[in-house]
């Protein structure tokens, strides 16, 4: 590899996004002058309280809910934990069975595993080779004891978008609550909780150019759910803790910006992504695109390159300024590669050799060009080192 001057290209927007300047600008006053505790009575509380309520309306508008149904959390993980544990514990008398999919985020899967230890029973539905859950499988899995179905709107690794509205309908046909983890979908998939038959929906600010450590749970009015974080009377007495006012304000502004023109945004991003995918598959042999050919997030490209391992790819890319992600076990220090890639039928070797590139608002065609220039070299180099590469 020649020692070219590096060009920083961030293509890991599914991991986290930078904050848009408008979002930071919206937050700044709340970092200094508007510092009051929003729950107090005096005027120092007015702007903080109004900031939070404005953000609540912004979130509500973005997902077709009412503001009273939006509860702020410290992120997507807390929202997932709350939705699933909260519904499970509140509906225990009605049943102990939960239906979810094998490709959920760990925030859902590990929560379900914890519930199994508390005496709940969980069905982890398989997916097809593209990562789709079959609504028929959901229907078949529902029993008299089922109290919750939880299937994500779009997958964080392979970008596959689920038939959420149908899954929600199936759940509702059987009188079962439906939760969806929409953390990756906000700003990329138009969301309407009524159209999608959703009772609970998780979202996370830092996935759509908002602040880290902020999120929200949508809870349809009347849904039986227990509190996860007990204490003071914040969030209609359902989620205690002094509110992260600047964070909430930033999340509100971010979701407003992210959902202002989803179609236009997707068009622009998908055009770059498609050129990237074509370019990579043309230039690199023994490569495949993981996930669904069409029902996928506009910004997601997930490849498997045979004979090489993902963490090495990441590090060589990083040496050239490119930030990406992998489903290889080596990158996490765990022993198994991505459960998502295994669930769509990849071998351990293919899963190990995966690379996820997720585009974002600041990426340009030049970034795509640069990756198309660097990536084939990187894969070639690692294949030279690998004992598996055919001669």
């Amino acid at each position, binding site marked *: 590899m020649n020692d070219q001057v590096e060009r920083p290209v961030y293509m890991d927007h599914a991991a986290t996004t930078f904050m848009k300047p408008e979002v930071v600008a919206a937050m700044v006053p709340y970092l200094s002058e508007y510092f009051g505790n929003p729950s107090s009575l005096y005027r120092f509380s007015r702007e903080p309280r109004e900031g939070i309520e404005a953000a609540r309306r912004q979130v509500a508008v973005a997902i077709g809910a009412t503001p009273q149904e939006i509860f702020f959390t410290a992120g997507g993980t807390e929202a997932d934990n709350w939705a699933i544990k909260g519904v499970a514990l509140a509906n225990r008398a009605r049943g102990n069975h939960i239906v979810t999919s094998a490709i959920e985020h760990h925030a859902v899967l590990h929560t379900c595993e914890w519930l199994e230890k508390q005496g709940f029973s969980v069905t982890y539905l398989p997916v097809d080779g593209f990562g789709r859950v079959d609504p028929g499988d959901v229907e078949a899995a529902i029993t008299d004891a089922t109290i919750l179905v939880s299937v994500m709107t779009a997958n964080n690794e392979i970008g596959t978008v689920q038939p959420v509205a149908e899954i929600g309908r199936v759940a509702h046909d059987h009188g079962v609550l439906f939760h969806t983890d929409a953390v990756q979908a906000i700003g990329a998939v138009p969301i309407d909780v009524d159209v999608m038959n959703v009772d609970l929906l998780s979202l996370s600010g830092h996935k759509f150019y908002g602040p880290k450590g902020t999120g929200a749970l949508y809870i349809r009015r009347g849904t039986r759910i227990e509190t996860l974080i007990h204490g003071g009377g914040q969030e209609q007495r359902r989620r205690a803790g002094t509110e992260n006012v600047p964070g909430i304000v930033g999340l509100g502004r971010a979701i407003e910006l992210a959902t202002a023109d989803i179609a236009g945004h997707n068009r622009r991003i998908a055009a770059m992504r498609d050129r990237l995918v074509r370019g990579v598959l043309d230039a690199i042999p023994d490569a495949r695109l993981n996930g669904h050919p069409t029902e996928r997030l506009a910004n997601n490209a997930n490849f498997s390159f045979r*004979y*090489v*391992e993902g*963490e*090495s790819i990441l*590090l*060589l890319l990083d*040496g050239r300024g490119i930030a990406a992600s992998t489903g*290889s*076990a*080596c*990158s*996490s*220090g*765990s*022993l198994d*590669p991505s459960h998502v890639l295994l669930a769509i039928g990849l071998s*351990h*070797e293919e899963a*190990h050799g995966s690379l996820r590139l997720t585009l974002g608002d600041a990426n340009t065609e030049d970034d795509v060009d640069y990756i198309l220039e660097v990536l084939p070299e990187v894969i070639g180099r690692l294949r*030279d*080192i*690998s*004992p*598996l590469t055919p001669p």
Partner: protein
Amino acid sequence: MMYTDRVIEEFTNPQNVGELTDADGFGEVGSPSCGDIMRIYLKIEDDRITDARFRTFGCAAAIASSSVATRMILGMTLSEAWSLSNAEVLDALGGLPEPKVHCSLLAPDAIRVAINDYRVRRGLEPWERKSCSWGGDCASCPKKS
């Protein structure tokens, strides 16, 4: 989890990548815990390692430790190379993040397999391997956890 600069340097510019068509000893080990694979080729003259080449499928830690280990054993006697320890490889790399320590076992392991291959080809008894090839018998084996 973060690598030291030495690991990154060694990984980015690995030494001794390749094969030796006329190798005197050959070893291949795989890590059942994560699917990584290392092949090593040794040239041996007068009980000393005069050349070494490797190919590794694995993470940066695996590749860097392969590279550094093949450099370390050059000029060693077989019994010196046999006793190259994981700790020495780690030291040479300036340490590895905890979850990556097992990756550095691959190289000393492959070296021992190659040395025994050489001995067997010569009609000698293979030396007894104290550490396993990820058979799950060692106290620190990641397969167990």
